[in-house]
């Protein structure tokens, strides 16, 4: 009987009702996640430290510390939420204390972390007051100096995917406290421009790894739901990123660890020099699109700008369910 346990825990993470998400994008995809994904069994508050010590245990008998410190006690004597429950205070009748006890956004930490982190939002610290494995200090959001904390580089993607999850499951119309710095009062996109840009960057730079997948499975076994952005990382780009117009499907291009490429300097841009190479690719366009230039089918995915000469040129593409056009200038 015990032999089937690994199978059970693995299949638990894979039973996500992914069919409900297929073919959707943008606001509809985010809403679909809210509809199908919800914690089923919450861990009692008093049991959180012990539960998290098991979930986040490492092979040396310690714990995986997302708020490491060279000088701290490094004992898992406290817990902290990535996003403070206080931000949802006025929505307690809707969400109860789920936000404080949702394991996906709760981590074990040393005793000093909650006091340092307070109710600050995740962000990019510019001037730090604490810099010891992770940072606390001032960041800049919409031109304002705001207290934020920055997780260690190796966990920034984990934090981003956790916030994607929270923004999808718990959007509200009124944010308290510092929540207004990263969230908007709307069902979509919920993330604001600052957090969208920063979190998608973290999500790309720190992709899902085995530690995060194991954590997702462990939580599913206890709480009854998974973080879909860990199971299917490409979802984020189809909700908030360049693919927000393109229906998401669990295809080889969207399964974990096979995310679409990020924007690079080879993507299409408005102007070229004659000596440049034009690459017919863009994060806004499916990779299998067919292209034409000035009404003539493109000879290939890349060509010297000199082949089409100086002037204004119209590029068009078609792919399944989507078409588009763009004018570029070659000088």
């Amino acid at each position, binding site marked *: *009987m*015990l032999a089937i*346990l690994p199978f*059970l*825990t693995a299949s*638990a993470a894979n*039973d996500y*009702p992914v069919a409900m998400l297929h073919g959707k*994008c*943008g*606001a*509809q995809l985010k*809403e679909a996640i*809210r*509809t*199908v*994904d*919800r914690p*089923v*069994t919450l861990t009692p508050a008093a049991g959180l430290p012990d539960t998290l010590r098991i979930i986040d245990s490492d092979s040396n008998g310690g714990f995986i510390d997302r708020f490491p410190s060279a000088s701290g006690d490094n004992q898992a004597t406290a817990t902290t939420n990535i996003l403070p429950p206080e931000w949802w205070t006025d929505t307690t009748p*809707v*969400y109860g204390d789920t936000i404080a006890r949702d394991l996906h956004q709760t981590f074990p930490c040393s005793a000093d972390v909650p006091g340092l982190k307070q109710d600050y939002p995740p962000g990019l610290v510019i001037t730090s007051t604490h810099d010891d494995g992770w940072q606390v200090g001032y960041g800049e959001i919409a031109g304002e100096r705001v207290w934020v904390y920055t997780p260690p580089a190796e966990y920034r993607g984990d934090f981003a995917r956790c916030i994607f999850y929270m923004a999808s499951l718990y*959007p*509200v*119309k009124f944010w308290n406290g510092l929540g207004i710095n990263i969230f*908007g009062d*709307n*069902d*979509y*996109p919920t993330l*604001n*421009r600052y957090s969208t*840009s920063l979190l998608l960057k973290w999500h790309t730079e720190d992709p899902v790894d085995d530690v995060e997948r194991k954590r997702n499975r462990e939580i*599913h*076994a*206890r*709480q*009854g*739901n998974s973080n879909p952005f860990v199971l299917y990382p490409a979802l984020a780009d189809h909700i908030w990123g360049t693919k*927000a*117009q*393109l229906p998401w499907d669990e295809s080889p291009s969207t399964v974990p660890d096979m995310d679409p490429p990020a924007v690079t300097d080879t993507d*299409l*841009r*408005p*102007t070229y020099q004659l000596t440049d190479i034009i690459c017919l690719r*863009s994060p*806004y*366009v499916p990779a299998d699109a067919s292209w034409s230039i000035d009404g003539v089918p493109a000879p290939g995915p890349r060509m010297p700008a000199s082949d089409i000469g100086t002037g*204004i040129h119209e590029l*068009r593409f078609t792919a399944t*369910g*989507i*078409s*588009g*056009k*763009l*004018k*570029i*200038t070659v000088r």
Partner: protein
Amino acid sequence: MKFMNAYLLTAITAIALAGCSKSGSTDTGLPDNPGITTTDPNDSDFDFAPELADPATRYVSEELTLRYDSGGIMVTRTASSIRFVDLGGGGDVLISSGTPFQTGFMTNVTIVENGKPLPIKSFKTERLSTTQIYLNILTADNRRIIAAVTDL
């Protein structure tokens, strides 16, 4: 052994409960698309006819203007969405609907302009064909948005 059995029981219970949740309601009481009405965006001070006569592909709001003919503006269209992106970094607008666009008033729509959702009072598809779509939109604070995609 006792611990493992308890763990297994917990896992099975969680899976069973998860199955229940997924077939049941998880409604949080949050309304969809609040504020959008079928109020006619045209009033005595505004005539959409000149907009229909203009074949330019464009997005014009109070905060942002993206004209395809200016160059560098990627315009993409699906059955239920339109996107204007200035590849030079000058702006990004995504207009999307929960259902394919149809002529007349629509309520299940969102507009995200430069990352910011715009509250909508009224959304009307004034013209729709396989190659054209003209949208007449009024925001909650009575600002007009014109979005037109032609020859696509």
